[in-house]
C-alpha cells in the first residue's frame, strides 16, 4: 500500500519524530511504500538544516534524508508553518531579503494543498503529533 505520514512534533522535544521514523521503517519492511511525509505545526523543525544532536543520540534529520534517498520518499514541509518558524529555503530567503537558508537538503517547502492531496491519493495517512 501507499502510505503518507503527517508529522507535527519537533524533534528532540517530543517523541513524534522517533515514532514516525520507526513506523516508517516497519511499513517498508512489510513491503509497503512510504511516498510522502508531510511536516506541519512544530513538525517543520524536523527540516532544520543545522540540527547538531549529541553524538550518542540519533540524528533525526539525517534519518529523514536517508528515507528520501533510499525510498524516494517526498519530504514536504508546510511553507506557511515553516516561514514563521524560521525554516526557509534559499528562494524564500532571497524573496524576503534575508541572508542564508535553514531548510535541510531533501526537504521541500510546499503548501497545505499537498497534505490534502496526500490524504486523498494515498491508501493510508498516519499522524504523529506532540
Amino acid at each position, binding site marked *: 500500500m501507499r502510505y503518507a505520514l503527517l508529522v507535527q512534533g519537533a524533534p528532540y522535544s517530543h517523541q*513524534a519524530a522517533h*515514532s514516525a521514523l520507526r*513506523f516508517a*521503517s516497519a*511499513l517498508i519492511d512489510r513491503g509497503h511504500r512510504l511516498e510522502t511525509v508531510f511536516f506541519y505545526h512544530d513538525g517543520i523543525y524536523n527540516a532544520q538544516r543545522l540540527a547538531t544532536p549529541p553524538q550518542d543520540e540519533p540524528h533525526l534529520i539525517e534519518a529523514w534524508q536517508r528515507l528520501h534517498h533510499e525510498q524516494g520518499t517526498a519530504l514536504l514541509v508546510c511553507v506557511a508553518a515553516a516561514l514563521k518558524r524560521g525554516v526557509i529555503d534559499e528562494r524564500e530567503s532571497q524573496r524576503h531579503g534575508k541572508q542564508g537558508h535553514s531548510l535541510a537538503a531533501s526537504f521541500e517547502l510546499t503548501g497545505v494543498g499537498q497534505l490534502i492531496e496526500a490524504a486523498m491519493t494515498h491508501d*493510508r495517512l498516519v499522524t*504523529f*503529533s*506532540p
Partner: protein
Amino acid sequence: MQLHLLNRSVASSHVYRDALRAMSDDDYLLLIEDGVYGAVAPLVEHFSSIAGRLFALREDLESRGLEGRCAESVIVVDTEGFVQLTEETERTVSWF
C-alpha cells in the same frame, strides 16, 4: 473500521475520553508513547468499555519499564503489528 492512536497518559490528560467517545463499536485503540502508561492497572480501568480492542505498543512499554506491568486485557503489538493494524483498518485517527 478505524484505528485510533492515543499518545497521552490517562493520568494527566482528558483526551482519552474524547477518543473513546469518537470510537465505533468495532474500532481499535492503540496506546503509543506516553499513552502506554494507561495499559497498566489501575489506569487501564478507564478503557474497560473497549475490552478486546485495546492495544499497546511493545517498544514503548519496554522503554518505560512497563512490559511486565501491562494488564492482561491489553493486546501488546510491536511496530510491525502497528503497521498491520493500519492495514486492517480503513483509517487512522490520532489523539494527542
